[in-house]
């Protein structure tokens, strides 16, 4: 049970493909007040924008249905509010879908607060002069291929949405830590210029945003970093007090581990300059943070500092950038590696003779060099899987890679087995630009009756 004066914010998803049952366990026995689902990777909004262009009802995270169906009954029963960016490229459509799920579950008419305004595609269309952070070039060159542009909104507009009282808050693109910071600001009335508290809340959000990464997932190492009952690892939550004190813990009775080691790995995860982690809410400095094991599976976080937020939003611009084609086939036993290498040369020659060209091409021997390269110094395994991949603007050329790799069964060195079907995927690339915050008009709308 949580102590008096504590608000408990739980993490229900750290990606759209995250496991679902641990979120239910949190809702049922975590004694949480908020359940936050972070479900948007860098290019997810682009992908969902494409779904929406095919069907205007869609464009929200497809996992919304299954997640809400699983947790809504427990959340409504226990008075847990749901906060999520599962609205993706269509938060309004997501809200309607959420309300329908609630109705179908017999939970009645549940209002949903919707956060709009992250879509900046119209804004950036006329701003070809904006400089892309990644390569320093003007945005102009990718505008003709643009499929989405979304600003990472901050906690302020999420607080506005929470102020409506709606049990569910759905947004599109919102920075991950902001999703967690918002309930704290809402509950305790923290303002954005109360930097010590904003810093603590942002650090807590960063620790929670990858769910199991702080409870022993992406961590264990047999004999070196053992994790008990990892198969049943639980999701984390933060116990937050009005003064900004934070303790991270996890669902009681679940497996995994939550300690200073797991928290340190997650704290540094995806941070560059640790004195300047830029979110829409502040510029966080983690170098003064202390992590302290307060009890079993409870870690106290203190000493987060922050500077005021920058005057710009980061805007992710998604665009189509050709195709990636892939093929795979296996060789085993005597001279397996020699046959795989020969096979790769044969496929390359066949692709060349057909006139196919690639902007990037890669040959991997899975089992030797697919992760860390340096084929020449790796010991030979018993069996190896040849993988060939190429990027091109010509769909036929992309398809030909998998086609020719599969044809090695009949037309390559002896004893090739287990080729995959030729694989082609659209490349959805992402670049980012900065937009002055005053150009973005974030707003809250309620679907249903409060």
């Amino acid at each position: 049970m949580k102590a008096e004066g504590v608000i408990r914010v739980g993490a229900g998803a750290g990606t759209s493909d995250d496991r679902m049952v641990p979120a239910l366990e949190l809702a049922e026995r975590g004694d949480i007040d908020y359940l936050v689902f972070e479900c948007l990777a860098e290019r997810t909004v682009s992908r969902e924008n494409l779904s929406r262009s095919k069907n205007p009802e869609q464009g929200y995270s497809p996992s919304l249905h299954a997640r809400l169906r699983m947790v809504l009954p427990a959340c409504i029963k226990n008075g847990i509010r749901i906060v999520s960016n599962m609205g993706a490229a269509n938060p309004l459509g997501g809200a309607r879908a959420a309300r329908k799920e609630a109705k179908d579950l017999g939970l009645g008419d549940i209002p949903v607060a919707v956060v709009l305004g992250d879509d900046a595609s119209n804004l950036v269309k006329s701003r070809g002069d904006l400089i892309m952070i990644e390569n320093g070039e003007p945005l102009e060159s990718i505008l003709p291929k643009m499929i989405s542009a979304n600003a990472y909104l901050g906690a302020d507009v999420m607080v506005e949405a929470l102020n409506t009282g709606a049990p569910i808050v759905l947004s599109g693109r919102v920075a991950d830590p902001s999703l967690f910071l918002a309930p704290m600001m809402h509950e305790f009335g923290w303002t954005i210029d109360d930097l010590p508290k904003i810093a603590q809340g942002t650090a807590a959000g960063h620790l929670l945003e990858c769910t199991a990464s702080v409870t022993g997932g992406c961590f264990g190492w047999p004999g070196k970093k053992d994790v008990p009952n990892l198969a049943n690892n639980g999701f984390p939550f933060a116990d937050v007090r009005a003064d900004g004190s934070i303790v991270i813990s996890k669902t009681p009775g679940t497996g995994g581990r939550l300690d200073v080691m797991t928290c340190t790995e997650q704290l540094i995860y995806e941070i560059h300059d640790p004195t300047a982690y830029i979110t829409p809410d502040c510029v966080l400095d983690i170098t003064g943070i202390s992590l302290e094991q307060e009890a079993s599976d409870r870690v106290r976080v203190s000493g987060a500092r922050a500077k005021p937020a920058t005057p710009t939003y980061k805007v992710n611009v998604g665009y189509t950038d050709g195709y990636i084609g892939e093929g795979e086939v296996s060789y085993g036993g005597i001279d397996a590696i020699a046959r795989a290498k020969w096979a790769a040369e044969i496929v390359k020659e066949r692709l060349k003779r057909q006139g196919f060209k690639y902007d990037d091409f890669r040959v991997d021997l899975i089992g030797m060099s697919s992760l860390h390269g340096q084929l020449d110094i790796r010991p030979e395994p018993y069996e190896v899987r040849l993988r060939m991949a190429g990027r091109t603007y010509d769909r036929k050329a992309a398809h030909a890679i998998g086609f020719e790799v599969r044809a090695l069964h009949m037309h390559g060195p002896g004893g090739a087995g287990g080729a995959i079907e030729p694989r082609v995927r659209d490349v959805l690339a992402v670049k980012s630009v900065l937009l002055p915050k005053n150009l973005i008009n974030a707003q809250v709308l309620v679907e249903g009756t409060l």
Partner: protein
Amino acid sequence: MSVRVYDLAHSRAGDKGNTSNISVICYDAKHWEFLERELTTARVAEAFKHIAKGPIKRHPLRNLKAFNFVIENALGGGVTVSLAQDIHGKSYSNVMLAIELPDPK
């Protein structure tokens, strides 16, 4: 005699665009100064030369008995366009852990 980073520290890799960040976290704070002296960006660059173009920057996190290595041009152009199997470079922490350093004794 030599030690590996693996013997003294644990590590996790993260991605952002075409940049990989790899933490190195001491099991015991007493090894932090040794790693500060020996786990130089030059050594890390050597270990990653076939993977990343760089530049590489090392950020000290004394309070957390850790370092954060930020390696640019490391992810085949970035998660969205990379031809690699491990597009996020999640497995790169294992390249870091395998780096050999002179014996601290």
